């Protein structure tokens, strides 16, 4: 498979490199500002040919070997509004002059909403600095509110909870959309692949989770691009979309930002330093430095649990275009950013004295990028990127223990019986007898995920008549590795039960990706054009030293866009713009380490507890059975089949953008269970109570092989006693990572309507919204054993359930959310005001219980106390008591799967009380609530936010926002529970914030 993929890619590369380029012209000029001063480091890009230049100290730029013909020149620089124009290049142009306007609220075009990328063949939106400042972004995840139908998060802008971005999905869904969302900061992928700690010491589950955005500094973000459609094959290891964060690069004045809200305080400082020119006339480049300090508390009433973010970012960029590089300049960028901080509740007086829980969330990210403009016939640009991200996540919790008797903490990792013994610093201490009374212990998780990526990309742009063709080929190599020592304690003598699990012993995951993409643009007629993009990405994931070995995957992607009109040529026409696009593609998500290497678990069975002696010393014997980590060598990488169609229309100045999508996740990562039987020996406390050895003189020992308990007299006065034991046979569960058999379906429609600006009042109105649907039914045949019956006897039956032992095995949701944003922008006073009404018009969910073919898995019972009184009525038909039968059952020692329903009903008819009793234990009963499977429609609800930003000359600007400023405390109605509940569960609380920015 891998060999075939490689051959295909090499073939595509050869085709690409054989393409021909046009004869070159020179495109040179000067970039000035409104005062006539040169704009150093302004970037000039010829979009059709992907050639570029950078303005020098005098604002001069030069691009050589530009093919003759139409081209689109785009000039941008930090602090200035981007200037774009289509030009005709038929000969050398050496005196192109352009005056850039400062990017501020004096400009007519300032916007505070996400803007559609009209040139993209898939759904892509950009949120620029003005919009980010206006909403006073504190956590990157808050950008979701600026997307169509996006709502302000309920606890925004809290940093004390781990925040993630769910593109075209919601939290709590199968096949986590956050896990499939790729986040890149200046090209550095913020990956959760190498991290083991999705939650914390108390809730580490081993399930997949997206990258948290809490430790990404927000004040230095220049723009965010969000690709929710089918992205370029350049992007691998993602299934839901891409969030690209661009930080500030370029020469800028000092900028100080101070923000305050009831929960969060932030101060930041940044500056873009021009480093001047060397003696040889070579610019020394620009250095951007940024510092940010943010403190977020979880509760203003008890401001002790806080998340600190101390971000530092340094970015150096320069252009080398002198000497040998005169015709083939190299743009170089290197950045280093990091964060020191994390969560801390050490000072919280509400917590037990002396206890704390800290989560250090430090990060260090580096990136090197070199873009070499070759402008050859066979290659235009060659781009080398190398990046690395290192996280230092230290979860440290000091807990208080207070025990009336001694207790036992297990650390054994080998199978066998263990008797607790007092801590001995010279032993392995497999079972430590912990002292009674009060004591503290500190547990920690040392998680140090490291991800690196090296990529090489070449592109070649050709323009033949009305046809532009861009070919992109590239390869990338990523390495994910964890250097943490895993879970441990700072004092083994007081540590609770835990087992060492060294993350650093887990092998690295290498991924080699290669891709090729052809982007064809055919200009038809005056303004029409057809854009076709086809790409193929191949990935080979190599995990040496594990059962996974090498896994390959292919990701073909296609985009097509036809633009019938653009406003440029239809100024006086009602239909000013019309374009349609369609995309289809497959995206693959690599597994994270928590998927590949689940935390080893152990079955610890209490096989003996002694009676307490006069000092309340209680010994325990435990049987430890390591649960085998079954590396599932057949594990397939989770992938998404994405399809999308979209339209952009401009009707008389009103812009309408529509995008309909359907994403199907297949082979979602999940955890499987299997059962095996084993026997162990059990001894009760009652068996030792009457032994003729004083309790205080007893020495308890356990045979490590058969669990026999022996009591001896430490004084030697009494003979040793062998205690009677009972053999118990039971099932033991093992876990392994697997792929879901059922697809997870997501679909939706997103719309953005920007009504024509009402010039008289400088106001624009946007109506955006989204319809979103989700359906997932987990249908894998899943075993479950109840372990023991109520009377303590061990249960010998296993139920085999479609989708697990639960009342429902799936869920469907649908929602319609819309926002109306009214923005009044008064350039003359440099002020912008926006009011946004966020509404949920439809919020629907329903618990599902069905098999893969849609047939019944749960049954309505006429008598909630008789689980055999099932009827043909559908559980979806109304209120009902319901029971869920396993599809099959098996008996200890006999793996034959027997049909449950038939056998159970027959046993009931035949009055086989023993079998009925046993099988009844396997039935999931839902006889408390009548409404489990009812449709739940939540009545519409609303919330209103306002934001205002005012610039005071070029010196300062101030922003204020109030979320839910009407302080909506209303109620919503649930058709399922037939109850009214507070809307506060769905909308943000009344909240406000203020930001002051000063430039000098």
């Amino acid at each position, binding site marked *: 498979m891998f060999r075939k993929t490689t051959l295909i890619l090499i073939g595509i590369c050869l085709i690409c490199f054989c393409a021909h380029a046009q004869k070159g012209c020179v495109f040179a000029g000067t970039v000035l500002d409104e005062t006539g001063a040169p704009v150093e480091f302004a970037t000039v890009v010829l979009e059709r040919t992907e050639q570029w230049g950078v303005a020098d100290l005098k604002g001069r730029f030069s691009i050589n070997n530009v093919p003759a013909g139409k081209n689109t020149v785009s000039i941008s620089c930090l602090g200035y509004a981007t200037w774009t124009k289509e030009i005709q290049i038929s000969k050398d142009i050496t005196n192109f002059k352009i005056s850039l306007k400062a990017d501020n609220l004096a400009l007519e075009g300032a916007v505070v909403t996400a803007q559609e990328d009209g040139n993209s063949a898939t759904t892509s939106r950009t949120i620029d600095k003005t919009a980010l400042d206006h909403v006073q972004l504190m956590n990157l995840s808050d950008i979701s509110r600026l997307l169509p139908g996006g709502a302000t998060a309920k606890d925004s802008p809290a940093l004390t909870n781990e925040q993630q971005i769910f593109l075209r999905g919601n939290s709590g869904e199968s096949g986590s959309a956050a896990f499939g969302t790729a986040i890149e900061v200046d090209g550095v992928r913020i990956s959760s692949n190498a991290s083991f700690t999705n939650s914390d010491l108390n809730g580490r589950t081993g399930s997949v989770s997206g990258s948290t955005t809490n430790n990404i500094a927000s004040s230095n973000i220049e723009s965010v691009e969000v690709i929710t459609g089918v992205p370029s094959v350049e992007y691998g290891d993602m299934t839901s979309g891409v969030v690209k964060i661009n930080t500030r690069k370029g020469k800028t004045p000092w900028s100080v930002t101070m923000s305050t809200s009831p929960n969060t305080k932030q101060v930041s400082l940044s500056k873009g330093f021009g480093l001047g020119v060397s003696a040889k006339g070579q610019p020394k480049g620009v250095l951007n430095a940024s510092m940010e300090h943010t403190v977020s508390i979880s509760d203003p009433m008890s401001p002790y649990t806080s998340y600190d973010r101390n971000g530092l970012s340094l970015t150096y960029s320069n252009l080398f275009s002198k000497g040998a590089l005169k015709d083939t300049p190299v743009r170089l960028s290197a950045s280093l950013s990091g964060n020191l901080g994390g969560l801390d509740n050490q000072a919280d007086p509400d917590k037990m004295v002396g206890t704390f829980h800290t989560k250090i969330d430090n990060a260090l990210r580096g990136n090197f990028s070199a873009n070499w403009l070759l402008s050859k016939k066979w290659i235009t640009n060659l781009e080398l990127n190398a990046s690395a991200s290192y996280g230092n996540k230290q979860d440290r919790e000091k807990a208080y223990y207070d025990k009336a008797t001694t207790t036992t903490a297990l650390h054994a990792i080998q199978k066998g019986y263990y008797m607790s013994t007092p801590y001995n610093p010279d032993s392995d201490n497999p079972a430590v007898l912990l002292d009674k009374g009060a004591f503290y212990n500190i547990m920690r998780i040392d998680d140090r995920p490291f991800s690196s990526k090296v990529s090489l990309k070449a592109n070649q742009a050709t323009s033949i008549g009305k046809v532009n063709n861009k070919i992109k080929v590239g390869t990338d190599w990523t390495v994910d590795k964890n250097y943490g020592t895993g879970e441990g304690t700072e004092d083994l003598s007081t540590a609770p039960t835990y087992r060492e699990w060294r993350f650093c012993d887990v092998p690295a995951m290498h991924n080699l990706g290669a891709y090729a993409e052809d982007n064809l643009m055919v200009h038809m007629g005056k303004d029409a054009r057809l854009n076709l993009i086809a790409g193929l990405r191949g990935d080979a994931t190599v995990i040496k030293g594990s059962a996974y070995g090498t896994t390959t995957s292919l990701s073909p992607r296609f985009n097509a866009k036809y633009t019938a009109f653009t406003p440029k040529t239809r100024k006086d026409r009602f239909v000013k713009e019309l374009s349609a696009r369609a995309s289809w593609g497959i995206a693959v998500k690599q597994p994270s380490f928590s998927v590949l290497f689940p935390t080893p678990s152990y079955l610890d069975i209490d096989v003996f507890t002694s009676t307490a002696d006069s000092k309340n010393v*209680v010994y325990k014997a435990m049987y430890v059975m390591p649960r085998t980590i079954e590396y599932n060598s057949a594990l397939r990488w989770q992938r998404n089949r994405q399809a999308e169609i979209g339209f952009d229309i401009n009707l008389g100045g009103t812009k309408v953008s529509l995008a309909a999508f359907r994403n199907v996740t297949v082979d979602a990562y999940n955890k499987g269970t299997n059962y095996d039987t084993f026997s162990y020996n059990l001894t009760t*406390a009652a068996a030792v109570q009457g032994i003729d050895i004083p*309790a205080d003189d007893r020495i308890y020992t356990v045979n490590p092989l058969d669990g026999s308990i022996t009591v001896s007299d430490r004084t030697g006065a009494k003979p040793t006693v062998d205690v009677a034991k009972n053999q118990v046979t039971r099932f033991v569960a093992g876990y392994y990572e697997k792929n879901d058999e059922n697809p997870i379906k997501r679909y939706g429609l997103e719309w953005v309507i920007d009504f024509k600006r009402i010039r008289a009042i400088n106001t624009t109105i946007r109506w955006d919204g989204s319809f979103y649907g989700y359906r997932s039914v987990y249908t894998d045949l899943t075993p479950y054993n109840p372990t023991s019956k109520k009377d*303590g006897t061990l249960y010998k039956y296993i139920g085999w359930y479609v989708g697990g032992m639960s009342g429902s095995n799936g869920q469907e949701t649908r929602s319609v959310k819309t926002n109306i944003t009214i923005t009044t922008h008064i350039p003359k006073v440099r002020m912008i005001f926006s009011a946004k009404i966020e509404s949920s018009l439809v919020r629907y969910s329903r618990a599902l219980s069905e098999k893969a073919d849609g047939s019944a898995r749960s049954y309505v019972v006429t008598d909630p*106390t008789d689980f055999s009184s099932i009827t043909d009525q559908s559980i979806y038909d109304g209120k009902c008591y319901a029971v869920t039968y396993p599809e099959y059952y098996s008996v200890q020692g006999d793996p034959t799967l027997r049909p449950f329903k038939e056998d159970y009903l027959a046993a009931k008819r035949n009055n086989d009380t023993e079998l009925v009793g046993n099988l009844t234990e396997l039935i999931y009963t839902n006889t408390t609530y009548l409404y489990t499977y009812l449709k739940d429609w939540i009545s519409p609800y609303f919330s209103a936010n306002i934001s205002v930003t005012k610039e005071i000359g070029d010196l300062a600007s101030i922003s204020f926002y109030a979320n839910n400023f009407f302080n909506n405390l209303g109620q919503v109605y649930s058709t399922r529970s037939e109850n009214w509940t507070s809307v506060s569960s769905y909308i943000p609380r009344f909240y406000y914030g203020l930001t002051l920015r000063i430039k000098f």
Partner: protein
Amino acid sequence: MKKVLSIFSIAALLFAAASCNENNGPKPVEITVQLTSDNVALAVEGIPVELVEASGAATYTENTDASGCAIFKVPAGSYSASVAYKTVADGEKLVYSGSVNVIVEGAVADPFVLALNKVTSPQIIIKELYCTGCPKNTTGNYTDDAYIILYNNSDVEADASDIVISLVQPGNGHATNKYYVDDKLLYENENWILAYSAIWWFKEQVKIPAYSQIVIAIFGGIDHTQTVTASVNLSDPSYYWMSNTDISTTFKAAKYSVSNNIPTSHYMTTYPVSAGTAWVLSNNSPALYIGKMDKAAAEALSKDTENYEKTSLTNAKFPKANVTDCVEVWSAANIEKSKVRFSADLNSGHVDLTNNLGHSVYRNVDKEATEELAENAGKIVYNYAGGTFDAATNSGSTDPSGIDAEASIAAGAHIIYKDTNDSGKDFHERTKASIKK
């Protein structure tokens, strides 16, 4: 049917009376007083019957024979025959009392019938419930040290082997009570009450001497004072323990241990009614009762899911006829939200408990009955100060008898506790667990 029974009863009564009065002679006149209870002859030998001449000049006392007749030979005249008799039978205390006027005129052929009023009360009662825990030495509260004291409230040794212990749902008195329908308990007029979570029974025979007690450790049967000085020592060899060693792994909480001092014969056991992880005794406001039921019957009742109350399937239906004593505890901090959980025929009223301070609910002394016992002369200690009643705030409660029961017991007195089936009158909040010396 009732009429037929009545006729038979009267016939039997007359027959019984006739059978013990066949040889009446002239003066002094021999008269017979036949004792009856519930319209049938009280055929108990040895009940003293007192006959007092109307002027009070003469008093005669005779014991009944096996048929319940007391035979007197007295001069003609006007008398009053009376009985005040206490006894114990089948684990119940019985008090018979009544009087009748007797006119003796020459030969008296028919016996005089003295219909007695019968009052029953259980022999074994809940003397104390300690469940709310106490402050730890460091910070926080400790609640693993609950216990119950069962007391023999009679002068006859009691057999507690068939005593069972259970709870009524909801666990907390102030929790939402789904068994109220139209502001009335669902089982108010039923012949059963909820047995919530579990019914505990003794594994072996248990005897409680007269005016004595047994202590049952509910969670940890250990000396809790070793780590929590405000707690209690529950490791005494005479104590009993609600064992978790032979119960479902899902029902027991592994943290509970038992001292080696407590013999296995003192381990109680159960079969969980609900599939919870532990017996859900509230640490602030339980409704607890004891009853009489054979072990096998208690186990069968617990396992008979068909007999479970259907609302939540976490309660067995326990026959009210088997309930012998109850205590309804409300959390002092949640009085207004609390509702009674016992039906009126079992218990009325409630005793309030302040949480987490080491307090207990303790039975009030039946002052009159206790003082009546001749052997208590000079042994009763008064001026009880162990209650929580605060006159300034009119809060808390105390024993209105003023008798310091524990001090009196220590002085050798026999205490008889009140039993009016009203937790508000029968119990008070004690500032310190009684076993905490």
